[in-house]
């Protein structure tokens, strides 16, 4: 099989619910290695819920999530920990640990999962922060930097263990256009140079067309995927009025 078409995530017949309230039903899709898959759809359609399940935080009611052929939700504890180590996650608000400074935020996963020396950890953290343009802010606490900087620090933390898959929840929400563009460029660079696979939840049309190789469109009415394909292909060929309204930003 072509390396580039290798499936790294395979979701089959996934059903997600909060208690008795069903959010998604019978969702199936694949994510190929080194690609950027966009999860899109209107507000409340279950994008973030799907992401939560993909990163091991919300147990599905039914269905399977395979990460490189291991079933995430039926794996043993140690197997699941190994799978989680392949992930990097950027949460909507950055989710930096507020009692730690930026350097400590990046150092904690390294201290937990590697046997690197303090000096090596520090150097690696400084390097990752330089990649997102945050050199000089290592000793700042999350409350002392702007929302955009918190997001960039969150991305640096998501990359700290050199994950093969990075999940981003609304990465450019709240960022100014210049920083949003920089973030898109960073995603493209990481994808091309390191072969990192991205799964991105976003509403931002500019980002969707810029970074997305593949996309799935969730619909809150049917609680399932109503369209799949590259964003530009969906724009040109998808007949669904919901998808067209969303991608053309029509009322």
């Amino acid at each position: 099989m072509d390396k580039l078409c290798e499936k790294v995530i395979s979701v089959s017949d996934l059903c997600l619910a909060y208690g008795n309230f069903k959010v998604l039903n019978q969702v199936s899709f694949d994510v190929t290695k080194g690609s950027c898959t966009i999860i899109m759809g209107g507000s409340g359609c279950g994008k973030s819920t799907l992401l939560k399940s993909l990163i091991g935080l919300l147990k599905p009611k039914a269905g399977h999530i395979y990460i490189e052929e291991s079933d995430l939700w039926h794996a043993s504890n140690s197997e699941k920990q190994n799978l989680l180590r392949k992930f990097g996650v950027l949460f909507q608000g950055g989710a930096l640990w507020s009692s730690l400074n930026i350097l400590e935020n990046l150092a904690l996963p390294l201290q937990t999962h590697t046997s690197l020396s303090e000096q090596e950890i520090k150097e690696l953290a400084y390097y990752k922060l330089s990649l997102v343009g945050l050199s000089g802010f290592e000793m700042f606490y999350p409350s002392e930097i702007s929302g955009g900087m918190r997001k960039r620090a969150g991305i640096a933390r998501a990359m700290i263990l050199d994950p093969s898959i990075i999940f981003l929840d609304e990465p450019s929400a709240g960022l100014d256009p210049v920083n949003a563009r920089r973030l898109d460029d960073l995603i493209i660079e990481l994808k091309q140079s390191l072969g990192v696979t991205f799964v991105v939840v976003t509403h931002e049309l500019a980002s969707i067309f810029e970074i997305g190789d593949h996309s799935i469109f969730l619909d809150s009415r049917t609680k399932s995927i109503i369209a799949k394909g590259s964003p530009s292909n969906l724009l040109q060929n998808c007949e669904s009025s919901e998808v067209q309204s969303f991608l053309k930003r029509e009322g």
Partner: protein
Amino acid sequence: MVGIIMAGRTGASFAAELGNMKLNEELDALRTFGIRPMEFLVLPRTLALIVMVPMLVVYADIIGVLGGLTVGVQIMDFSVSHYIEQTQSAVSGMWEVFSGLLKSVVFGVIIGLVGCYKGLHSGNDSTALGKSVTSAVVMSVTFIVVADALFEVIFNALELR
């Protein structure tokens, strides 16, 4: 007394801090890195209280005795030696002190666990966070009163009083 003060001060602070972390997805971020909140957040806080509450009890005991001495000597015209004699006879043996320390360890566990539990299980908005903090204090104080009563029953049953 120290247990009640610590429930209001530290138990509430634990619930607020952890509840805020939940609100900001910081707990989810820990879990995605395979770091268990129980080990990383709850255990150190509870251990800290197990160590610190007895120390505060000793501190409060000393301050209490000195406070009594000040009031006795300044207002009630006791002599210092008379006050010390009376205090020694009132505290019959070291059991009084040790039983207080023993209880304070349990109170520390109660405050730590209840505060952290309420924070970790707080809702996802600021109103729910406020309710969790209030609930943490009320529940800690209730458990402390119940535990204190149970201690007295056990001490009496074992004829330690």
